[in-house]
């Protein structure tokens, strides 16, 4: 009886959890390594390539120091801007809207704002291809207004695609960091908290048993 009830609960929870699974198509099993080196390389891709049009208004230049960049590297990335300033594209929203028809979205949270997360970002960057009429479209986002920034549609074969895929992976890794800069700290603290709770709960269990043993 108890097992049945528990099963019923599991079904309920499973059904409820289903709603958080992607309604849209799920990207293929793309692995985005989240190493500090990848995130650092990704930061360079973003500041050199993507920030021509995109901003990351919730990330300040000073925050990039956490990724291990030294003062000189930071100076190159920020140009004349102060460390307190956020990563904002040099082109104004009006210019961008004129050029693309839509303002390119801010990337601070992009890795968390789409189903598929960083894998989806990778799919977009490597999804560009030439249509029969010569124009460029994107597998992951048909009709996308973003140009093929990595020139992926012209790359053929693993020798040419390899480095571009790496850039895309690194960019996705950086955006994953940007969406959640405290992830490492959170996991670190989490291990200690869960270890403490495990020990405490075991002690609480035996305490409960000792107390209840007083009953005849």
């Amino acid at each position: 009886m108890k097992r049945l009830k528990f099963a019923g609960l599991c079904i309920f929870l499973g059904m409820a959890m289903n709603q958080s699974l992607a309604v849209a198509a799920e990207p293929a099993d793309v692995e985005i390594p989240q190493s500090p080196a990848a995130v650092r390389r990704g930061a360079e891709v973003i500041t050199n390539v993507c920030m021509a049009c995109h901003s990351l208004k919730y990330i300040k230049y000073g925050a990039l120091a956490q990724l291990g960049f030294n003062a000189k590297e930071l100076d190159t990335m920020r140009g004349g801007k102060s460390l307190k300033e956020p990563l904002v594209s040099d082109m104004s929203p009006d210019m961008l809207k004129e050029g693309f028809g839509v303002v390119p979205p801010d990337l601070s949270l992009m890795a968390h704002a789409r189903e598929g997360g960083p894998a989806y970002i990778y799919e977009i960057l490597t999804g560009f291809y030439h249509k029969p009429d010569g124009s460029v479209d994107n597998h992951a986002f048909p009709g996308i207004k973003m140009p093929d920034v990595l020139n992926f549609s012209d790359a053929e074969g693993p020798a040419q695609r390899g480095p571009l895929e790496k850039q895309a992976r690194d960019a996705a890794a950086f955006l994953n960091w940007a969406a959640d800069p405290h992830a490492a700290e959170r996991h670190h603290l989490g291990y200690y908290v869960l270890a403490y709770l495990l020990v405490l709960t075991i002690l609480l269990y035996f305490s409960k048993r000792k107390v209840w043993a007083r009953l005849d």
Partner: protein
Amino acid sequence: MSEQDKVDPERRDFLITSTTILGVAGAAGACWPLISSMNPTPSVKSEAVTEVDLQGVAPGAVHTVPWRGEPVFIFHRTQGEIAAMEESKGGKDPQPDAARVKNPDWLVVIGICTHLGCVPNKTAKGWLCPCHGSIYDNSGRIISGPAPRNLDVPPYHFAADDKIIIG
């Protein structure tokens, strides 16, 4: 049964006591993030340091800049004013002028009257507070009036001859 009582209560109390202590310690530890969240954030702390460019502040002029929400007077003193200040000891809160400046050409003081917090106005001889009439000299020292202390000097240093950093 009585032997058990002698051994078991001790063990049980030890178990329950240590569990309680561990639990209370955890609860206390859990309070730390709450308290810490009320501390100034990195953004706020970065605003606590202000760079000031000294170019364009003519001798005899006062440049007022905000720092941590308060006005700071940056006074480019003339030679005559410096000499007069170095001779005098001040008023009820005596202090040599040299102790109040890093470079005698520049006086940097917090522009808040030490009486009740109003912002004094510049006069030829120093400052006059409009609220209750405290008078300060060109070294920011209290000369007359109800204010008890000289104008406070904030922490600052010269990053270059023409740039100071307050905070």
